[in-house]
């Protein structure tokens, strides 16, 4: 992505030549401005209930006219005590909690926490389970980016892509419901395996989805990418250089749009991602437009991975063959004494983890989702830490928004792709 798709003269007031960072000079203090014209700075409050904040985020904005001098985000309005709850739950009981942190990509969260628990316990999952988890992660990436696309379009004034994007989400929701029984709160993974195997209809339907999904992406691309309004509102807005992005610990599309080619699927592969053939889009200018292009391209690439995963889906069991970790099937638990005892111990006591700790970071649609478990030998973790990509990405908004207009702040906020469930946990 070395050349801009479009180079349109930006029409927003105060713009420099195309390619220059769009910054309106900030007066150092109100007194520097002509004392007759300059007033005091206005302090306005955006949220926590606001249509454009993508959840319960509160932005306190200091304005000089319409220019943002400073923006102070307040989070915590959705703090639900997940990490505290995790200390009172067995490892398998933590999986339903993860659905509710990043509720836009639930299966990806489920996979993340299961990988961390399996690393802690030293469990190796089966090949079929690996491929199914890749399918789950990529489906989650698609639905998360579709929400992002829909809501960002609404924020910037385009309502139709929202409906197109949500229609595609409904198709994935059908698949999720077919597999796990739930549209949104999937609770897909268990330590050592999965909730259940995919039905045959799932493979057929997913193949059909991968065949027609790129058409919707093309439609959205046709409507937005070269649109003068879209380009004018997103190019050169919220620029972060690569060094700043690394220093702010950004991850995911935010980091890649700033030109840092870091993707955990390529650089620290898990679930066999090194064997799949896909590209990782990397931006150049680090503005909102590049983040849009990166996420749009990631949807195409996810589709590609899904097609490959479906082709290579191996037969075999989905759960690891370890009765201390996986519940034996009911027929065996009812007939065989040993299986019944294993069943009893797992349900009553939970799966015990060895003493130690483990951290696994996966490439969530929002960025690097890390799960850090510390165990003292019991079935409930001593500490469950979620390394939240959206929380860390959001912290950079104060840097990005300085000097922009208020409407640009909305665009920047949308481009961070936050989900408050994960920001606040």
């Amino acid at each position, binding site marked *: 992505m070395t050349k801009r798709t479009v180079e349109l003269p930006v029409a927003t007031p105060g713009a420099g030549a195309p390619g220059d960072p769009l910054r309106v000079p900030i007066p150092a203090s109100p007194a520097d401005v002509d004392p007759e014209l300059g007033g005091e700075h206005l*302090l306005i409050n955006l949220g926590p209930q606001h249509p454009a904040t993508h959840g319960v985020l509160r932005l306190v904005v*200091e304005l000089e006219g319409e220019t943002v001098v400073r923006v102070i985000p307040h989070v915590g309005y959705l703090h639900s005590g997940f990490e*505290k709850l995790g200390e009172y739950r067995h490892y398998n009981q933590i999986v339903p909690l993860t659905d509710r942190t990043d509720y836009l990509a639930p299966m990806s969260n489920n996979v993340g926490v299961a990988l961390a628990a399996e690393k802690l316990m030293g469990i190796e999952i089966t090949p079929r389970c690996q491929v199914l988890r890749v399918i789950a992660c990529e489906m989650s990436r698609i639905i998360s980016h579709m929400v992002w696309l829909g809501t960002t379009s609404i924020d910037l004034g385009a309502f139709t892509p929202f409906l197109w994007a949500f229609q595609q989400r409904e198709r994935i929701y059908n698949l999720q419901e077919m597999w796990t029984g739930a549209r949104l709160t999937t609770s897909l993974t268990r330590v050592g395996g999965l909730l259940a195997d995919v039905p045959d209809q799932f493979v057929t339907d997913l193949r059909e989805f991968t065949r027609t999904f790129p058409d919707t992406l093309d439609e959205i691309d046709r409507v937005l990418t070269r649109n003068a309004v879209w380009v004018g509102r997103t190019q050169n807005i919220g620029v972060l250089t690569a060094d700043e992005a690394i220093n702010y610990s950004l991850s995911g599309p935010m980091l890649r749009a700033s030109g840092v080619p870091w993707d955990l699927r390529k650089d620290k592969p898990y679930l066999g991602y090194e064997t799949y053939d896909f590209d990782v889009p990397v931006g150049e200018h680090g503005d909102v437009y590049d983040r849009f292009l990166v996420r749009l391209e990631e949807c195409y690439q996810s589709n590609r991975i899904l097609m490959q995963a479906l082709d290579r889906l191996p037969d075999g069991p989905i759960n690891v063959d370890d009765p201390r970790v996986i519940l034996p099937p009911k027929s065996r638990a009812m007939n065989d004494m040993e299986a019944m005892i294993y069943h009893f111990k797992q349900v009553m006591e939970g799966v015990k983890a060895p003493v130690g700790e483990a*951290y696994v970071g996966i490439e969530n649609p929002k960025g690097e989702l890390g799960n*850090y478990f510390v165990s003292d030998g019991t079935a409930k973790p001593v500490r469950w830490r979620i390394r939240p990509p959206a929380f*860390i990405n*959001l*912290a950079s908004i104060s840097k990005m928004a300085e000097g922009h207009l208020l409407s640009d702040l909305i665009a920047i906020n949308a481009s961070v792709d936050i989900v408050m469930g994960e920001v606040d946990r």
Partner: protein
Amino acid sequence: MNPSAPALQATFGNAIGRVVEARGETIVTVAKGAVRDVLRWLRDTTGQEYNYLVDVTAVEYRDRERALEVVWNLRSLGSRQDLRIKVELAPRGELEVPSVTDLWAGANWLEREVFDMFGVRFTGHPDLRRILMWETYAEGYPLRKDFPLRGRFSRSEQVRQALNVNPEGHYSLEELAIAESYDELPAEMRDRLARGQRDRIPNSE
């Protein structure tokens, strides 16, 4: 074994405590007094270059005799190496560690969260106040092990406190300083603003 661990031992000697290598991860325990120099050395030295801060968090164990650990997860993007640095603090003692906000800007909110959830103070942090709970939250530090799951107060008391959050809890003190209404603030609040006192509800008894 991550080659940084022996390099740290060679450079810092006694300040480096236990080095554990398990499950492909390297965990180095460092003395509290040296941790800032260690972290700066890890970021700036050629050959180390841990330019990416993955996470800052804290761990308190159920065993009351074990130390409370503050954990930094570092990563070198160039060499794709991860490293975990830990500092041990006495759980009932003074919980204070230096801040690394000037080394990695991403540490700002992460340290605020550790302060909010555990009560660990980060000296040198530009703006250490609660981030997930409201600023005048009075029940304590939620992720400590002596903090019960459902909180210390009764449910009705929690609802009452939440609904009647002190007006200062809505805006941070520096925001109030910006606002036009600064002159209208009661003198007591302006006082507290000047002193930088943030973690007390005034007239709470």
